[in-house]
C-alpha cells in the first residue's frame, strides 16, 4: 500500500538521532585519544602495555588479582591514564541509552503516551541496574 504522506523525519526520531550522534562522537573521540596515547606512551597505562600479554589470557579472577585493574566505574579514578581515558570513551558509549531515553521520557510525559513512557522508564531502570551492578 502506498501513501501520499511526506516522509519527513519524525520529531522524536530527529531528537533521538541528535543525542546519539553527539554521544557517539564524544565516546569515540575519548576512545581514540586514550588508545593512541596509551600505545604511544604519551600517557601512562593503568595496565602497562608490555605486561598485557602475561595478563590477557588469564581467567578473570586471576587477572583481577594479578593486575589490580579497576572494575566498572572505578576506572574513573584512573581517567588520566591512557587506557583510563579510553575507558571513559567506553563508559560514554554505554551511557548513551540512558541519556537519549531521558529525552524520550520528557517527551512522553508531555504527549501523555503512558505505555511508551513506562517502556522508556523500564529500559532506563534495567540499564541503570546493570550499569551500577546492583544485585548482579
Amino acid at each position, binding site marked *: 500500500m*502506498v501513501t501520499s504522506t511526506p*516522509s519527513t523525519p519524525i520529531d522524536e526520531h530527529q531528537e533521538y538521532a541528535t543525542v546519539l550522534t553527539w554521544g557517539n562522537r564524544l565516546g569515540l573521540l575519548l576512545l581514540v585519544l586514550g588508545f593512541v596515547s596509551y600505545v604511544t606512551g604519551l600517557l601512562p597505562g593503568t*595496565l602497562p602495555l608490555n605486561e*598485557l600479554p602475561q595478563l*590477557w589470557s588469564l581467567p578473570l579472577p586471576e587477572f583481577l588479582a594479578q593486575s589490580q585493574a579497576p572494575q566498572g566505574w572505578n576506572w574513573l579514578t584512573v581517567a588520566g591514564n591512557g587506557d583510563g581515558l579510553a575507558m571513559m570513551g567506553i563508559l560514554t558509549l554505554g551511557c548513551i*541509552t540512558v541519556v537519549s531515553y531521558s529525552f524520550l521520557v520528557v517527551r512522553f510525559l508531555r504527549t501523555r503516551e503512558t505505555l511508551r513512557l513506562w517502556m522508556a522508564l523500564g529500559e532506563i531502570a*534495567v540499564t541503570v541496574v546493570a550499569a551500577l551492578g546492583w544485585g548482579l
Partner: protein
Amino acid sequence: MHFRSPHPLLLLGVLLLPHTAWAVPSSASATWPAWVWLLLLLLTAFVIGLFGVMAGIGGGVLFVPLVSSFFPFHIDYVRGAGLFIALGSSLAATPFLLRQNLASLKLAMPVALVASVFSIVGAQLGLWLSGLDPRYVQGALGVTIIGIGAFMLGVPPNRQENLPELDSLAKRLGLFGHYRADSGELADWTVFRTAKGLVGFIVVGLVAGMFGLGAGWANVPLINLVMGVPLKVAVATSNLSISIASPAAWVYLNQGAVLPALVAPSMLGVMSGSLIGSRLLPYVPTSVIRKMVIGVLFLSGFRSLLKGFGW
C-alpha cells in the same frame, strides 16, 4: 567507477589471513610484544567489519568466535569487547536510519526492552559458566555459531513484501509507519504476530548476552519473517534496538571483563571495515560473500567446539 569482482577464494584468503596466528605456538602470547597482537587484532577486526557488512550480518557475530579461537585472549575479554563492538557499530549507523524513518523507535522500544532484560540473564549465565570452566562457554559458543550458520543457510535473504493485518498488541503499541520503498514511493508497514516476535527476543537477548554476539543475525529474520515488517525497516530497526540494548555490556564491564586495550582496536577496526564495506557493497557479489561468511562461521564454530573439548 567499476570494480572487477575479486575471486571468492581470494576473498576467503583475505578473511582468514590474520588468523595465521592460529599456527603460532601458544608461548607467542607471552613472547610477542603487545603491540603486535593489538595490530593483528585491529587488522582482523577491520576484515571482519568489511565482510560482516557485505554479508549483511554485522561484525559482532564473526568477531567473538574468530578472535576467541585464534587469539591468545581469554574468552571473557573477547565477549566483553564483542558487546561493545555491536553497541558502537549500531550507534554509528542508527542516526542516519532514524532520520530516514527507516528505523522505528516505536517498534524498537518493546523489542529492545525484552532483549535488554534477558541479555543480563545471558551475561550472568555466561560469566558463571566461564567461572566453572571456560571450555563450557567455548564449546557452547561453537554449537551456537554452527547453529547460526545453519540458520542463515536456511533463511531466505529477502522475501515478498506485503502488508499484514495489524494485531491487537501491535495496535496498542502503535507499531505501524511508512518508509521509502525501493520504487521511491512511500509505503506503509505494519506488524503482526507481535507476541511471538517478542518471545523470540527473549532467546536473542539470552544468546547475545551469554556469548557477547551482536544480534543482527537473529533480529532481522525475527522482525522481517515473524513480525512481517519489510526488510529495509527490519534491518534498520534491528540496528536501533542493538544500540539501545546495552545492559549485557555493563555486566561484563562491572565484572572487570572489558579491557580498553582490546576494545579500542577491535571497535575501530570493525567500524572502519564496516564503513569501507558499505561503500564497496554495490560492486561486490554479496551472495558469494554471504556464502563465504557462512563458511567462515562454520569453521570458527568447529574451532570453538574443538577448543571446548580441549583439543
